[in-house]
């Protein structure tokens, strides 16, 4: 029967070519949508490298306040923070922080290699306040203030990119402006761009003690809410009346970040689904028309001893064979992406997208062919033969 099906499909190749390309097009669209989807899903499932729950970011804009005054006011803020039981930890950093729109990208080099990295300037308390994870070495300490060579903490990805399998600990790197840094610690990858962004090379530089800092990060108790936030803001504004101060919950910043990054993905997904829906409608229509044109054949087959089930199976079988031929072609094209490393996407993402696309196409083809095939099967043989 399979040979018979192949013959029928081959002999109707002109009619079937359109369907074949329709399915192929649909598969390539699905492959692209799934590749995007799995690409981001994979990031989403990976750890961020820091905690965002019960973390607040305080945006400090000291406007025209002179540098010495900023230092004094920030010290007063620190003293005040220590008096609040709701605050478990706090730290200072520059503008570059998770879920924010600031970046600082600089080149680093050794004698053998050079790599670009995102640079964060953070104080000694940042590591614990942000709930980061150390892999090797240590985070910054007070003694680093007088260290002969400026210290740096790097992420695992940066260490691997720069030194391969060697440990980065104790190694020197030259920052873009020829500042020498000594690596004192390696932390887990710090995905500051959020859940939907991949691992990046990052380097943490130490913020000098009492250096004015535009960002304050707080680890608060989970019971701390809007009332405490208002009180804290009021206290800060009393200390720094000329400053613009804003407190943001990092959980909320994360949600906003995800929403912003999901918009293009959702838009692409909707376009993809719309295209696939159109293809499905097309397939359904073509099959419906096809069955209408093949009433005579259905009648003959029924007269020759075919059951309703066999008629339905034949039509579904024909579409499945066509879908398989289209998918063979589609998979051939899709496989080129991981083989040729067209984009920086992991092979497993492509494989998952190839398989998911196949699954959807087979389901789609089955659904689109099921009802017309059922209609064909239910056709009364005497009626089918009469309406030639």
């Amino acid at each position: 029967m399979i040979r018979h099906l192949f013959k029928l499909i081959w002999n109707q190749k002109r009619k079937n070519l359109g369907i074949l390309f329709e399915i192929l097009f649909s598969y390539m669209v699905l492959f692209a949508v799934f590749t995007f989807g799995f690409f981001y899903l994979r990031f989403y499932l990976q750890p961020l490298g820091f905690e965002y729950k019960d973390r607040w970011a305080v945006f400090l804009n000291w406007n025209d306040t002179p540098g010495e005054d900023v230092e004094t006011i920030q010290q007063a803020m620190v003293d005040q923070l220590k008096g609040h039981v709701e605050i478990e930890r706090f730290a200072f950093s520059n503008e570059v922080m998770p879920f924010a729109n600031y970046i600082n990208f600089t080149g680093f080099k050794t004698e053998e290699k050079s790599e670009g990295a995102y640079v964060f300037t953070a104080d000694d308390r940042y590591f614990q306040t942000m709930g980061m994870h150390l892999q090797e070495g240590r985070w910054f300490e007070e003694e680093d203030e007088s260290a002969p060579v400026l210290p740096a903490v790097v992420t695992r990805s940066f260490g691997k990119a720069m030194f391969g399998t060697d440990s980065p600990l104790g190694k020197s790197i030259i920052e873009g402006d020829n500042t020498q840094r000594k690596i004192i610690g390696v932390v887990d990858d710090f995905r500051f761009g959020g859940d939907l962004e991949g691992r990046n090379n990052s380097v943490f530089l130490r913020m000098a003690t009492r250096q004015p800092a535009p960002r304050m990060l707080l680890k608060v108790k989970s019971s701390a809410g809007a009332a405490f936030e208002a009180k804290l803001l009021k206290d800060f504004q009393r200390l720094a009346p000329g400053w613009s101060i804003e407190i943001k919950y990092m959980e909320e910043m994360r949600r906003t970040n995800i929403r912003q990054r999901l918009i293009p993905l959702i838009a692409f997904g909707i376009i993809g689904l719309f295209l696939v829906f159109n293809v499905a409608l097309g397939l359904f229509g073509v099959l419906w028309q096809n069955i209408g044109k093949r009433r005579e054949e259905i009648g003959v087959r029924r007269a020759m001893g075919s059951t309703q089930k066999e008629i339905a199976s034949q039509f579904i079988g024909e579409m499945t064979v066509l879908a398989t031929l289209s998918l063979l072609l589609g998979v051939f094209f899709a496989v080129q992406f991981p083989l040729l490393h067209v984009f920086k996407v992991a092979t497993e993402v492509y494989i998952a997208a190839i398989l998911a696309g196949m699954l959807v196409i087979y389901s789609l083809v089955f659904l689109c062919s099921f009802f017309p095939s059922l209609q064909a099967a239910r056709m009364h043989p005497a009626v089918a033969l009469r309406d030639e």
Partner: protein
Amino acid sequence: MIALQNVNKVYQTKSIETVALNRINLEVAGGEFLAIMGPSGCGKSTLLNIMGLLDEPTDGAVSINASDLKGYSDKQLARFRNKHIGFVFQSYHLINDLQVMDNVEIPLLYRRVSGKERRQLAAEALSRVGLRNRMEHFPTQLSGGQCQRVAIARAIVGQPSIILADEPTGNLDSVMGAEIMEILLQLNQENGTTIVMVTHDETMARQAHRIVRLFDGSQVM
């Protein structure tokens, strides 16, 4: 072989009731060649469809080879048709996208016969109708008479005991029609195949053992 008892067939729409067959009682003996005649629209094809289990009577009973077919499922009826009945239609009803050989093989597909055996049986059937040399042709490449011979090969490939022919010479000229009639007569005489043939052609009908005439759905002789 084929027995119809008080067979009625009524087509009903919302407003109109059309009686296609009215109390038909008919017996066709094994090995008989029966011709059914009558004017257009008298119910000849409906009668043939009921005999061939392609249609169900509104009332009455149909039995073939002593099997009462009432209550048979779709699958049972299909298998019964496949095993016992061959069909020849006026407009051949060949599948144009399949070669002659593949068209003839169709009834064997539903018997789960192996590919090799199918081809052998189809070749034998085509030899019987003199078309062995046209196996690789498509129906569109054949003449009307050749198409009808392919249809006969398809009807006999499964060696059914009954062949139902609905105006098999209706679309053919007299020479080709005579050729087809010759094949049907041979099948009847040499193999003992029971043949029921609907025809408008009195000359053809006279070659049968018996003629049944219908008028307005009723048997008149």
